[in-house]
């Protein structure tokens, strides 16, 4: 039993390791996973597209708003500058004489109240200084006639022009970055109306700071150009001048209000152009796409991990589910395998999914049927053999009948009427018990009676060459025994033990119950047997022709078939001393039921 137990266990790891692509578990796991990945991917792509589009839209809107805000501030500031210019101009206009100190005072006050205001200057169209606030020495080599504010004032005398930011190099003291406002105006010099160029320099600092503060992502920035494309403000102005940076101004100059994508620098950038209306400056917001759409990156990350988690969960789940499905099947398979190896006694475990359970049940049912059929076959086989034996049993050796009848004839010839009667009576009784209505089992009493009649016939035949005794315990008499078990043994004792003896022989038959077993001994004082002969007797090799036809072997076999291997014959023999045969049977009181069982 142990060996059988170990077998499947040892095979188990090998089974687990062998990866069968067609196994249910693999098929389910793979298809589950593939399907889920497909669905998740689809959903992710859709979500991703949707999200990124919204994020991009939001980002661009946001940037446009920022730039719009800056633009708004700039416009306000420029308007403020214009207002100051108007104030200065008005004051100059109102003054009858340009040299009057009151004007200088007024303008000085104005300059002090407005921090941004750097200087005010009035020049003749030839470039001669007429009035300057604050009153500082002019520098030499100012080249003012080449400066843009001077040139535009001459070219467009009516229009208030804003210069690009530049260094104020007119007055001694500081070099300041300024935006110059200039126009041709009229002033009175000692009552005389003259034309002059009024220059108001405004510190560039405010615009610089305003622009510098614009932050569009980490790298993004804003720059300002004037209507000619000159850089007003650019955080990387020097790099552009050095040729290390490049700004695609053409597309910026074309439009006054626009948002678009630019790829001219190699990196995708989102450009927003707004125009500062009064002066035609353009404020340009530059945002790097990879920065403003940070959500894209986050989303990528999220979707990636989402996929990983989903796949992991699905794999785990499908492994679990498929194992749940395939495990009972495998168990069933293993059980079937055990059955196929010949073990019909272990029932199959019933469990798992409904189908598998049903399958197991049906299989168990089938197994049960097979077992039944097998039992039946064994039974039938046994019955067949028994009937064969019965037939054998029924065969009475004609020799015995012939010998007996011969002796009867001889007795009759000699006129021994009484002995003839005894012999015939015994023969008649002998046969009656032999047949005993076809029954297989009889009481010990009957069996003993049977052998007694046989012995009577034989003693007459052998002219009292031997004697016999039959003893039986009272309680043993009613015990069940197979019929025709003693006669072959006695026959054997006579033919092999007593026949050739010179002295008078004897046969003792005893029946008694010992240790809950019925024991019948047949002892004689015949020639005895060699062990070889005894073995041959039990194996059926010796069959004497004069006997009843039922061999000793037959007796042994019949006992064992009916009662089991614990019962049967045993011999004890010594040459020239005698033989003792012991029959061991179970103690079964004779009744109708036993009789039936014996019949079947």
């Amino acid at each position, binding site marked *: 039993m142990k060996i059988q137990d170990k077998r499947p266990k040892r095979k188990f790891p090998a089974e687990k390791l062998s990866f069968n692509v067609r196994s249910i578990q693999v098929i389910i796991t793979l298809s589950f996973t593939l399907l889920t990945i497909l669905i998740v991917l689809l959903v992710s792509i859709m979500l991703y597209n949707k999200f990124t589009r919204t994020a991009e839209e939001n980002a661009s809107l946001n940037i446009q708003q920022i730039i719009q805000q800056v633009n708004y501030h700039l416009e306000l500031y420029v308007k403020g500058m214009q207002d100051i210019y108007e104030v200065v101009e008005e004051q100059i206009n109102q003054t009858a004489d340009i040299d009057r100190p009151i004007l200088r005072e007024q303008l000085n006050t104005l300059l002090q109240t407005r921090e941004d205001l750097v200087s005010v200057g009035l020049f003749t169209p030839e470039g001669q200084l007429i009035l300057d606030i604050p009153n500082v020495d002019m520098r030499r*080599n100012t*080249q003012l006639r080449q400066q843009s504010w001077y040139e535009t004032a001459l070219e467009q005398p009516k229009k208030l022009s804003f210069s690009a930011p530049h260094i104020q190099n007119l007055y*001694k003291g500081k070099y300041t970055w300024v935006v110059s406002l200039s126009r041709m105006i009229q002033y009175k010099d000692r009552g005389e109306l003259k034309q002059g160029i009024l220059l108001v320099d405004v510190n*560039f600092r405010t615009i610089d700071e305003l622009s510098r503060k614009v932050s569009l992502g980490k*790298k993004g920035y804003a720059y300002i150009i004037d209507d000619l494309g000159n850089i007003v403000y650019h955080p990387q102005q020097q790099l552009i*001048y050095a040729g290390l940076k490049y700004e695609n101004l053409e597309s910026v100059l074309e439009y006054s209000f626009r948002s678009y994508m630019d790829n001219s620098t190699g990196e995708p950038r989102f450009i927003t152009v707004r125009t500062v209306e009064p002066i035609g400056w353009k404020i340009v917001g530059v945002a790097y796409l990879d920065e403003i759409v940070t959500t894209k990156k986050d989303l990528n990350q999220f979707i990636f991990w989402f996929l990983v988690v989903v796949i992991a969960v699905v794999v785990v789940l499908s492994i679990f589910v498929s*194992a749940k499905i395939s495990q009972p099947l495998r168990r069933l398979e293993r059980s079937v395998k055990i059955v196929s190896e010949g073990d019909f006694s272990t029932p199959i475990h019933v469990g798992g999914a409904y189908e598998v359970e049903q399958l197991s049940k049906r299989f168990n049912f089938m197994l049960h049927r097979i077992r039944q059929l097998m039992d039946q076959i064994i039974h039938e086989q046994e019955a067949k053999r028994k009937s064969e034996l019965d037939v054998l049993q029924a065969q009475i050796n004609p020799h015995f009948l012939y010998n007996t009848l011969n002796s009867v004839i001889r007795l009759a010839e000699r006129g021994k009427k009484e002995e003839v009667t005894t012999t015939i009576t015994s023969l008649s009784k002998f046969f009656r018990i032999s047949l005993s209505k076809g029954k297989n089992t009889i009481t010990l009493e009957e069996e003993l009676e049977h052998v007694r009649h046989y012995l009577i016939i034989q003693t007459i035949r052998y002219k009292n060459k031997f004697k016999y005794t039959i003893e039986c315990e009272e309680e043993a008499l009613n015990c069940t025994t197979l019929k025709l078990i003693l006669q072959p043994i006695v026959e054997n004792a006579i033919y092999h033990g007593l026949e050739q003896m010179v002295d008078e022989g004897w046969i003792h038959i005893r029946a008694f119950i010992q240790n809950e077993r019925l024991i019948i001994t047949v002892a004689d004082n015949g020639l005895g047997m060699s062990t070889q002969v005894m073995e041959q007797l039990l194996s059926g090799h010796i069959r004497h022709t004069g006997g009843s036809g039922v061999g000793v072997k037959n007796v042994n076999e019949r006992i064992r078939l009916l009662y089991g291997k614990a019962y049967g014959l045993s011999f004890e023999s010594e040459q020239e001393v005698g033989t003792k045969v012991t029959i061991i049977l179970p103690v079964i009181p004779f009744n109708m039921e036993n009789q039936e069982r014996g019949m079947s």
Partner: protein
Amino acid sequence: MRRVSLFKSSLLIVLSTVLVSCTGSGATLHESSTIRRVDMIVKMNHGDFWKTVKMGAEVAAKEYNVDLKFKGPQNENDIEGQIQLMDESIKGKADAIILSASDYMKLAQVTDRAAFYKIPVISMDSEVASARVKSFVGTNNYEAGQMAAERLVMLTGEQGRIGVMNFVKGSKNGDEREEGFMDYIARYPDVRVVSVEYCESDEQIARTLTRKMVAEHPEMNGIVALNEVASIGTAEEIQKLGIGGRVKVIAFDSPDKVMELLQEGIVQATVIQNPFNNGYLAVQQAVKAIEGDDIQERVDTHTKMIDLDNMLWPENQKLLFPFVR
């Protein structure tokens, strides 16, 4: 039973890996936008030149996602202080160091030390005597000297008598400028360099030396000052002596005072470098060095000759006056 435990354990493994990977996602997120720490150690923590360098460096830092630390001793001569700052940066495990060495030789050792700790060193503006420096970003001083000489010869004619006001003897930059200047002058046999002086980067000394030079060589009709401080001292002294215009002055760098004197006609021209680009390109090179990209051994930030004619060109205005105040 064994099967079930096997299954359970595999489930556990999968779940735990998922969990671990989820928590790990934070780390990978930061990796894509690593902040690189670059320390910039300059000769002095004040002065317009270095402020402009810083401005350029900051623009690059913003562009390349760099955490920039700008450091410098109080004084340009404080070599010990600069070495200390280098050691600090090495200890602080900066990803890269940009060094503008006050002394060519004395900062070599600490530079090697930084290289030993696998910190790439970019030298900027002034070189250092170490072979471990990844790249030099700065002016070609020899060419700058030649440029100054060319203009001065043009101004003084081929019979010029020229004085040279260098700043520190042994300073790499000064030496190179002087060498370039001298090599160019040597082409003109009749042009003489009558005097070479070193003002120790001190305005006052520069004034004294100029006075001395003028007194000793009255025939001198041209003078070149090889750095900012020397330029201010020399030009102001020339103006004070009232010989402005007769003695032509070529200056270096563009402090307001020099620009003023340029407009006054005392200084005829000034050679300017591009500190903004120095700072910008140095940081750019540092980032490349951190990333392990190939970097140029020398990055030349060009010099320019500024005179009255071109000083108001927009691109020069920005170079001359980098700050909006």
